[in-house]
């Protein structure tokens, strides 16, 4: 479908680029634990590619893939338990440019949707601290995702543009990768704040 779309808009202006940055996530409390226990993911880098098509004067669309290092973790007081992990994000965003395209600097806001695949990839072990509250699990979990954000594009000549982007990826908490222990409750929304910088080639 992606390539069909590409063919349909061939006469229009396209943009392909790379993004890199990091992510900061909120944690969520494990309900039922006698002491405060937080479950979530460690901040980590993110990188990906973006393909855009500028169909209208102010509106454009973008397909984006991001790889994010997202290590599941549990924390209670000074005790922490970590596990390596990652996330893969595939999304489509609508961009509203607040200035005409001929301007060198183009602010924009985005609204998008897609899927986020969480993967626990760490080495499992018979005992891990805080396992009485939640389990860090080597498994894969797919979650629907919405994303809102904004950014700035700077034209660097005829064919190149730099961009500074910020998005908030919103999913439900991945309860297979970080599973609640019996008697505990774990859930809520997971917010992943991702600032990135990028470079695009316009053609």
């Amino acid at each position, binding site marked *: 479908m992606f390539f069909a779309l590409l063919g349909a808009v061939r006469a229009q202006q396209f943009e392909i680029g790379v993004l890199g940055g990091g992510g900061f996530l909120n944690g969520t409390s494990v309900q039922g634990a006698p002491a405060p226990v937080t479950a979530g993911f460690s901040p980590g880098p993110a990188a990906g590619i973006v393909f855009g098509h500028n169909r209208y004067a102010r509106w454009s669309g973008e397909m984006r893939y991001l790889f994010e290092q997202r290590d599941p973790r549990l924390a209670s007081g000074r005790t922490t338990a970590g596990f390596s992990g990652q996330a893969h994000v595939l999304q489509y965003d609508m961009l509203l440019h607040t200035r005409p395209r001929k301007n060198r600097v183009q602010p924009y806001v985005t609204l998008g949707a897609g899927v986020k695949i969480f993967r626990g990839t760490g*080495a*499992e*072990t*018979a*005992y*891990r*601290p805080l*396992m009485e509250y939640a*389990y*860090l*699990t*080597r*498994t894969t979990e797919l979650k629907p995702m919405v994303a809102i954000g904004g950014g700035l594009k700077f034209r660097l000549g005829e064919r190149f543009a730099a961009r500074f982007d910020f998005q908030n990826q919103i999913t439900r908490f991945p309860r*297979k990768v970080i*599973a609640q*222990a*019996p008697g505990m409750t774990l859930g809520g929304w997971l917010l992943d704040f991702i600032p990135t910088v990028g470079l695009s080639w316009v053609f």
Partner: protein
Amino acid sequence: MRCERLIKLLPIWLAAGWMGISGAARGATFGDVVAIGGQAADIALDEGRGVLYIANFTAARIDVLTLADRTIRTSIHVAPGPSSLALSPGGRFLVATHFGNVAPPGSPANALTVIDLESGARQTFALGNPPLGVAFGADGTALVATTGEFLLLDPASGRTELVDTVAGITATSLPAAPGTPPVQIVSAAMAASGDGRFVFGLADTMRFMYEVSARRIRVIGYTATPPLGPRVVSVARDGAYYAAGWGVFSRQGVLLAQFGNASGALAVGSHAIDSAAGIVYAQIPTAQSDTAALRAPPVLSIVDADNLTVRESLRLPENLAGRGLLNAQADTLYAVSESGVTILPVGLLGQFHRLAADREDLVFHSSFCQRGGITQTLKIVDPGGGRTAFALGSDLAGVTISPSSGRTPATVQVRIDPATFQDRRGTVTGWLTVSSSESVNLPWAVRILVNNQRPDERGAATDVPGTLADLLADPVRDRFYILRQDRNQVLVFDGSGLFPMATLRTSNTPTRMAITPDHQNLLIGHDNSQLVYVYDLDTFQQLAPVVMPGGHYARSVAASGNAILAASRVAGAIHTIDRLDLLSGTAVTPPSLGVFQNSIHLDTVLAATPNGGAIMAASADGNLMLYDAGADTVTVSRKLPGVVTGAFAASGAGLFVAGNTLLNSSLVPVETWTGAEFPSGFAFVDSQGVRLTGPPPGVPSGGAIARVDLSTGGAMRPTRVAEQPLAAGGRSVFTRTLAPLANRNALIALTVSGFTTLAWSFDAAVVPPAISRVVNAADLTAAVAPGSLISVFGTNLNPTNVATQTIPLPTAIGESCLTVNGSALPMFFASPGQINAQLPLHIDGRVAMTLYTPGGVSDDYYLNLLPAAPAIFHSGTAGPLTAIPVVVKGGNQELVTPSNPIHAGDEISIYATGLGATSPEVEAGDASPASPLAVALLGPDVRLGGVPLAVSYAGLAPGQVGVYQINARVPPKPPVGTEVPLTVTQGGAAATVGVRVVD
């Protein structure tokens, strides 16, 4: 200590026809001798040219041995008396010194020859003083030591430079008395580290270290008794330590360890250090072998470099007699020897015939409910895997060995006839010797221990091989420490389970232990090291040792609240009390002990009061001293009539024991126990004493233990002990053989086979046992089958906690034995409330279980056995988690837990008991074989959440007793969940555990 053991074994070897009686039994030797037709003084290895240079002292030439064919093809004629050789780092120059200290009317002919091996040019220079040796440093200059100075020689120019002078060195005059070997004439040795940064040397009255980069000499004067022989220096590659004579020294000159009981012969023996392997090859003649030189064969020992623990002993074709050199690969050792040079292919040792037994001790323990012959199995192997002929013999009557000869590998049955020992109380000790006409090594003899415990004897013996020298209970931790002197180890045992927790390395020949008043550190004194080892008792980490003053060996250590004292053997006439400082790692010798001279008997032991208020010193000659920590001085010195041997102890209440005497706080005797028994151990327990005695010398009997009323000194309720306590404390006439555990459950006694556990209330009236419940030992449910591991619960089942690691499992443990339908069960744990055992295979239906103890016989307890009763073990632990079902994930070999869940396709292993008969059948108490595997006759059905798993193996776990293993694979789409039932079903019986499964 190794030497002591060899000496002990000498009569046994004689009995076995090891010497003389049968020439064939003398055994093969290791290494090839190359005779040079003269007497070698030194060697230098030139691997680049494939030759070994041999300084032929008496023939005035340097013989060149070709390494490839081990023949001497050329000789270089040089000035008379080539005494020392050194090869320059690049291999261009060979330097030889010539010892020519000719007495008038002759003329001195001391000289130095530099041979350019590339051009063949040769220059000889006269020396003003007799040379002691030569060695090259990494800078390409040679250090030449003479009796008057240290010179640096530039071999290219022939120029010498004075580094330092030295005085007081006397050289042997020539001509020497007939029979004097060259090494003894020169009386000095030098060697450089492998990296060429340091040169170490040894002469009659000095050791020295030359730092090549700084061109600095450090000379240490010394006196040594016996002389520091053999006169050889070997250096670790980085120069961190070196061996000189019978000592191993740090670079700074501290005596780290010494070979025990050395004869001090200068011209017999050799050594070479393999730094990478951490070993030393050494022939150090002992005082005994020296006096029996005609009979004792020369032996090369392979020892640990740090504490000289003997790993292996090899027969040599002749005595080594000077420098030993390892080649770069460290697989060939070249050493000066009596005929010239001996070449030892140490890297090929595995290809030579050798012998070893797989056990150090064979323990035959019968009891009042186990009669008939007892058989133990022993494996005789060649460590290199070869087929080596062997012969076995024993000095004990009533011992049958089958087969008594053969070829390795062999499994030997050793059987004792109980009738031979039925009238003997205590433990009878003998030896089983292993000999061969083919093996090049001296295999350890196997100790045979036979004990026939009577109903009136208390205690459960645990076998601990070796020479046990000291016993200490940790005052705050549930453990105790045993000093194993022959292996240089402290063995740490758990106080409740009595299982070994850790093994701590010591230096050579540890003698006594002490615990600091803060209970934090364990101190270990040695007879063959000038270090006192220090261990952190929480972490078992070795801390910086305390370095004793030169020539002082801390044989006994005690710590008070104010000072840590050591009773030191001193290399000299006067032995002393030294004071240790843990912080600085040093020790000093007080000039006096209060108003008394600081002079003690060689065999002196120290005992500190538990409150740290005082330390008693007891000497074998009857002298006693008391150090008062408050006054920080010795406040009492007194002499008892006669000699003192055996027990020594100190209480916090101001009472002390030395031998047979109870002393008050002024060390005045308040009670002297009479009798022929040997006073082996004493412990102050609460307001009483506990006294452990052994039989008089030569009397075959067990020991006795009795409480002592400290107000009167009277013994109360003497009780027989199953095994006699030790009558010697390693190298001392004093023995510390009784230790009350901190858990107050038991008293530990050092006895001849290891240690004996005695109930805290060892003298309480015995009560008949009662069985209340029998369950399988896996999940503690009632279902049991033939061959199941079971747990028996009840009261008065055994006086103490006793566990065994002996396989086959004994059918009597502690003071209890358990029977089913009259047959004794193999047992592996017994305690007052619980016994763990294995049911026999050939029973079924309703059976009667009966327990026999010294207190009587239990009522019968009836069990209903199922043909199969699978039960999954719940004995797994992970971090703080316990009672985890023993299901192991193949991928990471860890227990399945919620944080290590089962995944699709995983291979899992389930450990269980009660799976019934197997093919081949394995007798109860025996370890199951690895080949062929013992497969369960009735295959189990394994399901995960109701989904069947493919079972690849179900049978006994190899090497385990009564433990079955089921290997199964999880299907690609397993049911997932946090508590998915994993069920093993066999013959209608099932066991289920919950496991977490994720996809």
